[in-house]
Each structure stands twice: as C-alpha cells, then as structure tokens.
C-alpha cells in the first residue's frame, strides 16, 4: 500500500512538472506572472497588453533548425 502511495505521489509529481513545462513553453506562466505583477484579472485588454509587451521577446527568440 505504501509503495502504491509512493508511486501515485511520483506520478502526480511527474504530471505537475509536465504541465508546468507545457505552461512555460506555451507562455501561460508568463501571462500569469504578468497578471500577478500588475494585479490584473485576465481579460482581452490584459492579454493584448501582455502580447504587446512580450512581442519583441517572442519574435526575437531563435528556433533551431
């Protein structure tokens, strides 16, 4: 039983890390940080503002061959 709980815990940790990685890759975390820094709620205007701020960073990010 203990082993199953341990395994379940590890699987949960893996799933959390996987989700966190996806959220970082897809800029969801960056948007969350943007909202929290400015104490804003998610909205069209907030997202448009986020995209404007991140546009240059995003567009300058190289993608390898």
């Amino acid at each position, binding site marked *: 039983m203990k082993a199953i709980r341990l395994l379940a815990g590890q699987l949960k940790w893996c799933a959390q*890390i996987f989700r*966190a*990685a*996806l*959220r*970082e*890759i*897809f*800029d*969801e975390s*960056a*948007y*969350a*940080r*943007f*909202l929290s*820094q400015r104490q804003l709620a*998610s*909205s*069209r205007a*907030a*997202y*448009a503002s*986020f*995209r404007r*701020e*991140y*546009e*240059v*960073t*995003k*567009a*300058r*990010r*190289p*993608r*390898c*061959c």
Partner: protein
Amino acid sequence: MLIWLAVALLGALALATIALHRGEQINAMWLVVAAACSYALGYRFYSKFIAAKLLTLDALRATPAERLDNGRDFVPTNKWVVFGHHFAAIAGPGPLVGPVLAAQFGYLPGTLWILAGAVFGGCVQDFVVLLFSVRRDGKSLTEMARDEIGRLGGLVAYVAVISIIVILLAVCALVVVNALKASPWGTFTIAMTIPIALLMGVYLRTLRPGKVLETSALGFVLVMLAIWGGQWVSQTESVAHWFTFSGPALAILIIIYGFAASALPVWLLLAPRDYLSTFVKLGTITMLALGIVALRPTLHMPPLTRFIDGSGPVFAGNVFPFAFITIACGAISGFHALISSGTTPKLIRRETEARMVGYGAMLAESMVAIMAMIAACVLQPGIYFAINSPAGIVGQAPEAAAATISNWGFPITAAEMHALAQSVGEQTLYNRTGGAPAFAVGMAHIFSNSLGGQALMAIWYHFAIMFEALFILTVLDAGTRVGRFMVQDALGHIWKPLGRTSWYPSILATSALIVAAWGYFLWQGVKDPLGGINSLWPLFGIANQLLATVALCVATTIVIKMGKARYAAVTLGPLAWLVAVTFTASWHKIFDPNPRIGFLSHAAQLASGAGANARLIFNDRLDAVVTGTLIVMVTLILIESAVEWLRVLSGRKQARVKESPFVATRFAEEQG
C-alpha cells in the same frame, strides 16, 4: 558502480553489433540500445567531469535569473521546466532531415557520428556556452565573442549568424517545396494551417485570453480534420487541381508567406503557429519513440553502401567530410549556441542545473536524430533511393529510374513504387528529394505497423508530411523575423529610424531584404536540375558547423582565460574536428574537380556545354563565393582566438574573464 559497468558492456555489445554485422539485417533496437547506453554513460561520467573539473559549477553562486529577476526575461524556473523549454527550442527539423539524407552511406557512419558527435561535441558545446552565458548575465554568443576574443570575433559571429539564418531558411523552404510539389493532399493540409493559426490567434486574443494549451489542443484537432479532408481533396479531381502546384509555384507562395509572417503582428499568425507547431512536435516525437519501441523494426539499409566513395545520388561527396556536415543538429549544431546564450540562461535557477539542461537536452535531441535514421533505414533501400534521388541522376521515367537504382544493387520495380505511391495517396514518390518525404514514408511505415495497419498508411504519411512542413514553416517564419530584427539592429547604426522595430517602412524594407536573400537561394534550389538540395544542404551544414566553430573558439578562449588550460581539450577536441570537417568540405564544395561536388567545376562544365545557362553558372559561382567568405571569416576568428590563447598561456597577457561578480544565492539551502 556495477550497474554502470553493465550499461557499458551492453552499450559495447550494441555498438559492436551495429558496427560489425555484415550481410545480415539487424533490428533497430540495437541502435536504440547503443544510443541509450552511450548517452547514459556520457551524461553520468563525461558531463560530470566537465561540470566538476572544467566549469566548477558553483551551487552557491546566484544566477542572472535570480539576481535580475524581472518576471519577464529573467525568471528563476524549475530545472525540468527549463529542460522542456530548451528542448522545444533546439529540436527543429534538422535532426529529422539530416540523418535521412546521410542514410545514403548506410546506417553506420551517420549513427556513429550522431552518438560520438553528441556526447563529445554537441552536448559539450551547448553545456559550456550555456554556463558561460549564465556567468555573464545571459549575454549572447556574439557579445561573448566580442568581450572575450575581440571586436573582430564579435563581427564575424554576427555575420556568420546572419549567413546561417539565410541559408537555413532557404534549405527549410526547399524541403517544404519538395515535400508538397504535385501533392494536393499535403498542400491542402498545410494551406489549412494558416487559417487555423489565424483563428487560434483571434480565439486566444478575444475569446479565451491566455489559454494557450487549450487553444493549441483546439488547433491540433482542426489540423487533424484538415489531414482527413485532404484525402477527399486529393480524390476529388475538380478540387485537387486547385492544390496541385509545381516547385516554382510553391516557392513563390512560400516567399509570399515568409514576407507576410515577418510583417504581420506576432499575435495574429506567428505566435499561434509556433504554439501549434510545438504542440504537434512534442506529441509526434513521443509517438515516434513509442512506435519504434513497440514495433522494433528491422533495418533494411546495409551498414555501409557503395556511395561512401562520393558517388551518392542523394548528394555527392565522400563519407568524410560530407556525412559530418550533413548531420548537424543531431550531433553538433552551431545554432544551438544561440539558444544556449539566448532565452535559456535567463531561466536557470542554479548553476548546477546547467548540466541537465545544456548537456541533457542535446542528448534528447540526438535521440531524435537516431529515430530519424531508423525511419529512413527501415525502408527498402531501393525505395529510399527512388524517393531521394533527383531526376537528373536516375531519369524522369519510372521504369528508367527503377532500372538505374536496381543496377546499383538495390532492387526496385516501377510497379512497387506505383503501389507505394497509391498506398500513401500520392501520384508519384519518385524524385521527392529533400529528406522529408522519405522520412514521412518511414514514419508512416512505423506508425501504420504499430497502429491501424496498412489501411491508415496514407493518413500517417500525410500526418508526417504535415508535421514536418508545419515544423519547418515555423522555423521559416520565426527565422525570417529574427533575421529581420538583426538587419534592423545593424541598419539602425547607419540611420536610426531603420532600427525602430515598430516603424512600418523599416519593417517592410528589412522583411523584403531578408526574404529576398533566402528567396534567391530557394529559387536557385528549385531550378537546379540536380535537385537543389544537393548543393544547398552541404552549404547549410558548412554554415551551421562554422557557427559551432565560432562557439567553440569562444568557449576555448574562456576556458584558457579561466586558468583551466589543462582541460582545454574538452572544447579544443571538437573544435579541431569541426575545423577539419568544415574546411575540407568547403574546399571540396569550391574546388573539387567533380562537377557534382565542386561549384566551380560545375560552372565550368555548364559554360563549356552547348546552350550554357548563364543563371546556373552565376548561381554556382555565388555559392562558391558564399562558402569562401564563410571560411575566410572563420579563419580570421580562429587566428584571433589562437593569438589570444598564446598571449595568455605565455604570460604576455593577464588572464581575466569578463564574468559578473559573485553573489551568493538564496536557493543555497535547496537540494541540487
């Protein structure tokens, strides 16, 4: 320790099996086992040695992510998340296409180069450049070259980066053209990804702000529907002709697309396509790995083919040096140094995590290259050569091509090729050069045998084509934009308004400039009767490996200035190898008397023939000049670096690296 001894023995057995088997087909799992063991040993022992002795990673030293944390560019991030982020940025179409092209030599040379190149070269480069950038507030490669080597080093690195971007984009576009020409199914599916990306952009901005994963999943479902709809398009004659294009027509469409993607707002097309592409990329690579393990296919390609002598139909040139520049990204890629000194160093939370991110992510990329090699080598060699050989080598007519390839010792009939084309929903698979179609057939073979059987072969093939084209077009639009910014940065020094990234006249002018540069090479490749990829892929490989040479020059200079000259062989070894490979390859590409290899001898052959084509002759001479210019620039940086090394080693110059001052980390208590 016993476990590691067992891993070493198993790896040695697998390597011996793939290297020494002659005349018998082997199972692809031997490649997987050899790779897994080599990577495990390389990571456990070699990267640890580098981390401890050469770089002396300091768990107590604060990284720029911590010191300069601004919640935007600099953000201390979990190491696994940074790993995923870094891998998503370095894994492009290169490790898929390069090994497929190099499979013309057989599976052995490419596989050995992928394994050794990654463990001793590519991973080392990515790791040390990442750490050196971390210790310099996340500075870019060109800034580090300027600071540590000199102004010339910085200038050469900048020009090398621009050159490689232009050649890379041309090659990527050419691969897409070759994959989509005369293919209404593939063209329809890829064309549909543009409105899907636009829809995702609008959905993300107006309906569900910030829900990127959800939007990407929606985009993925729509792309799947587009693949399914493509079958109907290809089977409906009245619609199919709208999506059936020649190479030149596709080239023009892609040039227009590149310009539009560079000039349009990022949120509308570029960002959603990037998200969609990354989503598909990570999913497909995982599926391919699972498919190979589930199917455990047999490799039909021999370990070595007769084409190691340089007479290969896919591209001309001996196994040395051409196998080593054809496979770049899966073994060592200079482009990675841009990412290791770009976003990633600004996210690393602790210095000790640079090992897993820098060295580890490159190992994962190398595994992708091994999977591509397997996908190419599970095909019957006759099929592989029929797909990858240009019409100028094997002939236009199916019977003539089949006879030529059979005469090489790889039996194939026109009827077999026709049946294969029918099974994947294409009119023909002959002369589909560039690597992408052969990879798609191999991947469809693995997928259809693991899931769905032959009935789904066509769907899987077009899924693979869509995956590669989507992948490549993302590199194309993002790369055009990166190139545009670099040109704007440079022109801003001449006239300030040209450097303003939001001034539309400058946006349009610099977008046109960068698109014209790669568009020219693309056009040249499309018009080349020998298949274009024959000339352009080696040019790309040379440019990419020369950038790696620049990165390793910077790394070696820093190592010597750190007072670690006794460990300089870690970066000097791969540097010496790359210099040997790239300089030899460049010499051959410029001066080789064989017109299939040397640009100048090909130009001379064209000039001496009846009805000489002035444009093709000019193209050859231009390619020779580009290659020569790259070599001269890298020679200059090598000389400048060597002078710096000698000054430091002889004591004529004080060894002083330009690192940021030490600041203690607040994460010191954490386990690391």
